[in-house]
């Protein structure tokens, strides 16, 4: 009992101490410029945004942040974590911004600040090539469908599944790549992910996977994420401005074409997301 209360006291003290410290933290943009490095958190299992291509970190995020770095005049340093560890680490200050990217949702907007959208995030189903039992999204009723844990795609899939006569049997995975592996191995019938992601996977593995069209549910978008507090406001303003400039001069569309095979029309900002 004595040990317990001592531990509780220590943890409590640590939190109090931390709260007072973070209250004195400085303007993040100034800190980033002074260090010359923008620390960017991400997960390297979300092709084509972020993935390991023969050992090299590659994807749309890497290219886009290279441009953002040029605009801000800083170098980019990547920190790759499993997706469910990314948000706690952002709040702990392990990096300045998350390149995830994450679907812009109401729930996340309450807690985090999003950059302008960088791609469409509307959800669709990836199936095994030649699987005749799934020809439209509604066919996933009663089937095992994989999706990433702690993702907005999971929420979108659940909402859609609830409208079906029999719900889909949803399997949550730590990373989407593991769900693709299980789909290839025949352990699940499909994977629900945003259209750009599964279109890329299907293109990479022609003959193994196929996309079930059309995408379903409400239209949603991907954005990068930062903290909402006053310390991070100047940094997020600067990243927003850089992204809008990259979008305006056509660099964004060129990168989307490079990674998705097509460019998207995205709004400059999202005020009221569908989810």
């Amino acid at each position: 009992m004595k040990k317990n209360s001592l531990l509780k006291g220590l943890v409590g003290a640590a939190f109090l101490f931390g709260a007072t410290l973070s209250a004195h933290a400085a303007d993040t943009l100034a800190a980033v410029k002074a260090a010359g490095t923008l620390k960017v958190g991400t997960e390297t299992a979300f092709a084509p945004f972020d993935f390991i291509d023969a050992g090299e970190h590659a994807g749309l995020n890497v290219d886009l942040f290279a441009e953002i770095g040029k605009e801000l005049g800083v170098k980019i340093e990547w920190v790759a974590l499993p997706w469910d560890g990314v948000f706690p680490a952002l709040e702990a200050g392990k990096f300045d911004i998350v390149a995830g990217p994450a679907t812009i949702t109401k729930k996340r907007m309450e807690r985090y600040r999003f950059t302008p959208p960088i791609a469409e995030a509307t959800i669709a189903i990836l199936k095994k090539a030649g699987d005749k039992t799934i020809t439209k999204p509604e066919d996933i009723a009663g089937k095992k469908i994989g999706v990433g844990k702690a993702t907005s795609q999971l929420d979108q899939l659940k909402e859609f599944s609830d409208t079906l006569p029999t719900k889909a049997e949803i399997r949550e995975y730590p990373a989407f790549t593991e769900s693709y592996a299980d789909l290839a191995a025949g352990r699940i019938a499909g994977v629900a992910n945003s259209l750009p992601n599964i279109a890329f996977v299907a293109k990479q593995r022609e003959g193994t996977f196929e996309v079930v069209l059309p995408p379903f549910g409400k239209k949603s978008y991907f954005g990068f994420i930062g903290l909402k507090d006053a310390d991070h406001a100047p940094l997020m303003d600067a990243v927003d401005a850089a992204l809008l400039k990259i979008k305006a001069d056509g660099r964004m569309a060129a990168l989307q074409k490079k990674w998705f095979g097509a460019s998207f029309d995205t709004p400059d900002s999202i005020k009221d997301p569908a989810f």
Partner: protein
Amino acid sequence: MSFKLFELLLQASIYTVTISVVSILIGFAIAILLSGMLLSQRSHLMLPARIFISFFRGVPLLVQLLLIYNLLPVIGINVPSIVAAIIGLSLCTAAYQAENLRGGFASVPTGLVESAEMVGLSPSQIFRRIKVPIALRLTFPALVNEAILILKASSLVSVVGIVELTRMAQDLAGSTFLPLQLFASAGLIYLVINWIVALAGGLIERRLPGVPR
């Protein structure tokens, strides 16, 4: 599977080995201190050591790593991934090694110590010449065991952002869709590393004083 992929796995295993070796050594140094505190018979030394050991033995390593990575910044210490990984593994293995050492020192036959006292050896001589060699000899197999366990447990440090052997295999499996070949190769690399550790441990053990041949 191409040689390029195997080469990437080997490169990632350098992280696995480096982090494990550094953690085992730091852990051993902390364990000596902790076992000294445990054997001191003074409650103000024993209590903190006991709390330390019960915490780091009682909480899963995965949770410890996440706590160190995400909680330390809250108290103003923001460490890079590699440091968080080494701190986590070191503190965890220190708790186990301390218990091993304590057991080793406690198993030094009292008769030997009494005889040493009889022939006039000083307490520090008894410690250096009798207790340490015997305790080390008794705990050495457990230390080799612990090194192997830490090498395998190091696969957990990917949660703080280190691309070690297991994580590299997962990443490569994600982009090449060759999970079977990649995980089999990763398993083989772990096996070879741990086989070398066990072999080296056996060689050193035979050269330790007091081993019957």
